[in-house]
């Protein structure tokens, strides 16, 4: 620290430190946001490469490219990496960049802990990925790591998996505490709760969910560790435990986790649609209440993931109705977005294209979710490709499209340069076509009965699987274009104005582009 203190003068608009230590020792929310975003991009490409291996194997029936054991490791790591390494850190990165600027704060509330939250992640994923090279291979039990597959029948690397989940969880909890405290304590005078930008609201709720459920995940993996190595019987019926107990604990974490990955997307899309409709957002307060209701309901719907384990009938009915109730606040949001666009002066720059695609395709994913919520129907759909299609529709054109939309929308503010609109639109259309060609056919093969998590399938599923694989390759390789566009924008391009977008509202558009290293050293005026 001494070197930094020597360089430290009275002006607090000083720039970043030089060299690698800028990134290792930084306490700046913009630097940490950038680290998070690049890290998640790297994980997105690694997890994506695994998806390519999976789709290549499924291109034709029969075994062609990988061993079944390796296939299982691929689907497990693909899920874990995309969720914990791709989507979640991307949203935390966006929160880091945007929340302080949106509420008129100089930085996050606890800047050193912020740095720690990020730097845990590369180590956690190093451990997870290194398990590929361990004896017995990487975790192979699916990203949901159900007992006894993950306990009695797990490869030895499961211990490393458990501890890497532990430190990922610590990172998420610290990151979430930082966001909550920032929002509660650092708002500029005048930024009252109901004047907060919706992205800030969405992250306040998300952070609360994270603090509530990440410790439960830690509890679940701890019980696994004890069952495997120290003789407890939490998930073993022979000792009086129950493997279904694992699923209850896991999904008590897992369902709020689903909303952790979509609520920030709701916030982002609300901003983008408002800007490019050049209108006031329709129904601000109902948007807030909808997100709050979704968050509260997320704690009482977990067993809809386990309808086929043999729950008592009363439980099945309760969880069915509670789940369907979530469609109400979600519907409110979708109608609000549509109403915002209604009679607006719409233009379709790349962020808006991604945002509109989000509204349409996320709704498709939501509706297949409603189908899955119906107990008797779920008995048919459970563990088929219909489920795979459902959650990929809410996660890829849902969560990931919103992240891409956010990058296109705010990158002029971050870098000071406009991205290449022509290339951005090309990236959008390739992604849009790719994602639908990949996942829409999976509805059909799922309803026809193809089970998930198998490296081989019956001949009748061959055609749609080939279509799906072609779409996946298209989508996957289009993301290299995204990488190119981002690098090109960071390196140079047309200078962005401070306002950037004609209809953009909010404090982040009042500062210069690129945003200065320290934004607000005194609170801005907000009426």
């Amino acid at each position, binding site marked *: 620290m001494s070197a930094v203190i020597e360089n430290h003068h009275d002006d607090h608009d000083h720039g970043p430190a030089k060299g690698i230590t800028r990134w290792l020792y930084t306490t700046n929310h913009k630097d940490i946001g950038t680290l998070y975003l690049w890290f998640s991009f790297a994980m997105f490409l690694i997890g994506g490469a695994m998806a390519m291996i999976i789709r290549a194997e499924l291109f034709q029936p029969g075994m062609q490219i990988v061993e079944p054991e390796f296939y299982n490791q691929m689907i497990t790591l693909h899920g874990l990496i995309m969720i914990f390494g791709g989507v979640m850190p991307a949203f935390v990165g966006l929160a880091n960049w945007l929340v302080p600027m949106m509420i008129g704060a100089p930085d996050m509330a606890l800047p050193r802990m912020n740095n720690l939250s990020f730097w845990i992640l590369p180590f956690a994923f190093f451990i997870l990925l290194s398990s590929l090279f361990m004896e017995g291979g990487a975790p192979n039990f699916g990203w949901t790591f159900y007992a006894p597959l993950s306990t009695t029948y797990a490869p030895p690397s499961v211990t490393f998996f458990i501890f890497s989940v532990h*430190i990922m969880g610590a990172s998420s909890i610290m990151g979430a505490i930082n966001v909550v405290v920032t929002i*509660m*304590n*650092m708002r500029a005078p005048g930024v009252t709760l109901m004047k907060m930008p919706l992205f800030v609201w969405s992250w306040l709720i998300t952070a609360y969910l994270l603090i509530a459920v990440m*410790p439960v995940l830690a*509890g679940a993996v701890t*019980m696994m560790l004890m069952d495997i190595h120290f003789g*407890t*019987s939490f998930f073993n019926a022979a000792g009086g435990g*129950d493997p279904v107990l694992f699923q209850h604990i896991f999904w008590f974490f897992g369902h709020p986790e689903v909303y952790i990955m979509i609520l920030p997307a709701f916030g982002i899309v609300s901003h983008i649609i408002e800007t490019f409709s050049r209108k006031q957002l329709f129904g601000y307060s109902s948007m807030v209440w909808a997100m709050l209701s979704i968050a509260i309901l997320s704690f009482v719907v977990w067993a809809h993931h386990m309808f086929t384990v043999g729950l008592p009938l009363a439980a099945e009915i309760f969880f069915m109705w509670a789940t369907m109730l979530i469609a109400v606040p979600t519907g409110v949001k979708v109608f609000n977005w549509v109403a915002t666009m209604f009679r607006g002066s719409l233009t379709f720059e790349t962020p808006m294209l991604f945002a509109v695609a989000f509204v349409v395709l996320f709704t498709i994913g939501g509706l297949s979710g409603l189908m899955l919520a119906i107990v008797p129907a779920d008995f048919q759909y459970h563990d088929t490709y219909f489920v795979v299609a459902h959650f990929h529709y809410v996660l890829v054109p849902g969560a990931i499209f919103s992240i891409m939309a956010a990058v296109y929308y705010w990158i002029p503010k971050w870098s000071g340069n406009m991205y290449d609109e022509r290339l951005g639109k090309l990236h959008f259309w390739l992604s849009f076509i790719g994602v639908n060609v990949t996942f829409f056919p999976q509805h059909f093969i799922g309803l026809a009965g193809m089970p998930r998590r198998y490296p081989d399938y019956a001949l009748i599923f061959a055609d749609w699987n080939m279509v799906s694989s072609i779409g996946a390759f298209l989508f996957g390789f289009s993301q290299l274009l995204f990488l190119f566009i981002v690098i090109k924008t960071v390196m140079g391009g047309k200078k962005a104005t401070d306002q950037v977008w004609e209809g953009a509202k909010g404090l982040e558009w009042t500062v210069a582009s690129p945003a200065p290293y320290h934004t607000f050293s005194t609170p801005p005026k907000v009426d």
Partner: protein
Amino acid sequence: MSGGSYYVPDQSRFPIFMAVSLFLLVMGASSTINNLDDPTSNSVYILYSGFACLFLTMFFWFRQVIKEHLAGLDSNQLKQSYVYGMAWFIFSEVMFFAAFFGALFYVRTLAVPWLAGEGSKGAAITAIELWPAFESSWPVMTTPDQGNEYDLADKSMAWPGWSKALLWLPLWNTIVLLSSSWTVHLAHLGLKKGNRKKFNVYLGITVLLALIFVGLQALEYYEAYAHYGLKLNSGIYGSTFFMLTGFHGFHVMMGGFMLAIMLARSVFAGHFEQHDHFGFEAASWYWHFVDVVWLMLFLFVYIL
């Protein structure tokens, strides 16, 4: 540490050191646990070095925070951030215990009765005839597999009846921990009135009571293993009993350690002001939290 009304800290080396320490710690822990059967394995040294680095980093990090605080660099806003941060951290701890209590409630009210054939789901399980001899009770002294895979305990830690109540360790543990919550509160009152001596004395008593609690808990574990045959692998009762009380005991040690540090800071360095002592207050919040968890444990693990 800027001027103006906002606090913007300098760069810091502590976080990355902490991340490396955690990496060493979990790599060491994983490989140690995977090589428990291998006496030639030396991965435990990675674990030790992880612990050492973690403690060193925390020591210097907290020292830095305290120094900045004493130099008057903390704004009121930052102090408030610490308050919120600690409150949310305790909430996350509550949820961690909730997972284990949830597991306890689930096995007690659903899984164990079903395994013994109660209810419509139980009837379905019994129809498979895996373990027809198993009967539902709590504490479960026989496992469904009749101790095939698991060791059966002779005796549980449950309430022994009024006649033996005074010889029952958990009752004394409850008395010790409840008193310690009271004494830490008295210490806090003393500090708020500017009575340093009262603060030091009551905080000292609290730390002593924490040590007594940990000692009694160790004694209880010894009795369980040596005389009751109750072990971690005694089926689901042993699992829930040791994991809940074990994690609680671990948290008592952490809380007691925090309070001991606060005591040392007060006695040797004269830290904490009448109106400015959140470091101590945070530790005392944690202590009250640990106390509440114990009350839940006493009720649901021991009495009921």
